[in-house]
């Protein structure tokens, strides 16, 4: 019998060589150099098991779900629904909550913006978010507020990109009906004290949406202890395929909502002038879903569970600490985010003196280092920092200190051109 390579959840060390060998992209070279992939905040690389699961669906099943009476359709349906159970277990949502598959975090937030906010909000109601959000957790609320006459309010932000939680009681009031906040900033890695924010929301009977796009793939999550009403995240940032995401919702809230997408597969009976709909969560999955993607997401959840989310989080904490230490060697670096590393996940944003992030990123690319440059779909936070963009290194389970060394060494090339 094959032994699991990894210790269970109590492990804090990863067998990096063994892990890295499972990622075909890590065997490639970029610009002729060792590939240092530090853009995990944008998307993660995929292990062989996930790629194989996607291929398995197309080569061995390739049937639609919930319809066929033949073997392969039945099997596809079983595997699709198994992923729903796997994802539910992964985030501790076995009871009282539902998993709705979407095409990503953005769509999941829009399902809530249309099916909940636009349905129930009106003038005088307030929706609270923050200036550190990804545009995906801001723009849908802006539009929903415009459409309903509700007011958008913000938890104030500190100059380092952390939130002023002392102001929670002033912002979250009896008029607040929804609080939408990130679990981890995609720019600074800052992880707000969600328990405190959710408690403030609960005290006002407001519903809470947590944007877990950057968090769920890197940390253990339990939605019951978190006590949020919605948790949204993307498959492709957690070793899964693109085009599949998750909306977790408490059943009592989801039951009241309208679907965003109407059509086939979400109905029970259709007559010329009206239709009735399936129970949740199927009611929210109109049309043929991304079946291969969902099945492959199941493989990604298996992979991450086997490695262990505690171990992944600990590994990334170590990488961030190492990055911060190495960054101190470079006087020209301007860094962003709170100094308290215990409030941050594995993201490091910086600028090299006044060199434009694109110039810095282009030179790092020449050294085989992949980073994200620009405003990271978070322009309001860039305004807080007074910059148009940053260079962002974001870590994952397969990164090593060697990747960080490559980044720091690459900074010399920026110095060579821009002084």
């Amino acid at each position, binding site marked *: 019998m094959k032994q699991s390579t990894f210790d269970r959840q109590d492990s804090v060390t990863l067998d990096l060589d063994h892990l890295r060998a499972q990622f075909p992209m890590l065997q490639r070279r970029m610009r002729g150099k060792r590939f240092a992939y530090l853009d995990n905040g944008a998307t993660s690389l995929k292990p062989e098991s996930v790629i194989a699961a996607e291929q398995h669906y197309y080569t061995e099943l390739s049937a639609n779900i919930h319809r066929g009476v033949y073997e392969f359709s039945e099997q596809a349906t079983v595997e699709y629904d198994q992923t729903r159970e796997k994802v539910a277990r992964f985030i501790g949502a076995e009871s009282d909550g539902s998993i709705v598959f979407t095409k990503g975090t953005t769509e999941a937030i829009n399902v809530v913006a249309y099916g909940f906010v636009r349905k129930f909000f009106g003038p005088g109601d307030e929706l609270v978010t923050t200036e550190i959000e990804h545009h995906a957790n801001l723009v849908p609320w802006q539009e929903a507020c415009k459409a309903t006459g509700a007011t958008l309010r913000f938890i104030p932000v500190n100059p380092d990109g952390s939130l002023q939680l002392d102001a929670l009681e002033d912002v979250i009031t009896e008029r607040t009906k929804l609080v939408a906040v990130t679990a981890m900033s995609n720019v600074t890695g800052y992880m707000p004290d969600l328990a405190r924010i959710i408690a403030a929301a609960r005290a006002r009977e407001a519903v809470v949406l947590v944007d877990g796009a950057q968090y769920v793939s890197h940390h253990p999550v339990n939605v019951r202890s978190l006590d949020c009403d919605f948790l949204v995240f993307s498959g492709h940032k957690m070793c899964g395929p693109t085009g599949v995401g998750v909306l977790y919702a408490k059943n009592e809230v989801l039951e009241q909502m309208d679907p965003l997408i109407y059509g086939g597969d979400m109905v029970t009976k259709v007559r010329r002038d009206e239709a009735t709909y399936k129970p949740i969560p199927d009611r929210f999955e109109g049309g043929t879903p991304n079946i291969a993607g969902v099945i492959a997401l199941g493989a990604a959840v298996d992979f991450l569970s086997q490695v262990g989310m505690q171990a992944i989080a600990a590994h990334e904490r170590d990488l961030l600490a190492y990055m911060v230490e190495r960054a101190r060697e470079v006087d020209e670096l301007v860094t962003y985010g709170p100094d308290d590393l215990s409030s941050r996940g594995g993201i490091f944003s910086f600028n090299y003196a006044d060199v*434009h992030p*694109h*110039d810095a990123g*282009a*030179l790092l690319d020449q050294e085989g280092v992949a980073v994200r440059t620009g*405003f990271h779909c978070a322009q309001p936070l860039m305004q807080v920092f007074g910059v*148009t963009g940053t260079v962002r290194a974001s870590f994952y389970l397969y990164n090593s200190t060697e990747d960080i060394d490559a980044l720091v060494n690459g900074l010399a090339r920026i110095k060579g*051109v*821009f002084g």
Partner: protein
Amino acid sequence: MSLEDDLYQEIILENYRSKKNRRKIEGASLHAEGANPSCGDDLELFLSIEDDVVTDASYEGVGCSICCASANLLCESLHDRSTQEAREILKQFKGMLLDDLEPDFADEISDLEAMQGVKNYPVRIKCALLPWNTLGGLLDGVQ
């Protein structure tokens, strides 16, 4: 060729650092803003035109070295040109980057050829073209 040879040549870096045309023209005959939403490059271009001749050109804003160098070169190349000549320079510049055409700029503005290396870096072409596309919009408004 390395990135330093292709993209970050001395001419480009000099034009990036130059402050000469990095200013507002009060009472400019034409001005327009151009932005690349994907990267945050955002600049405003100013033109003074008298009797159909560009008497001054300048820009303000934020952008990477390629974008700013390109904007500075644009301003330098338009001095004392008629709007028709400006259109011709614009056409040649875009042809050089987008259609791989060999440019034939007048000697005094041949520094524009330094931008040719950008065509090897597809994601940076839009940086180099931002000021020129903004110019195109301005010139379209001139009869």
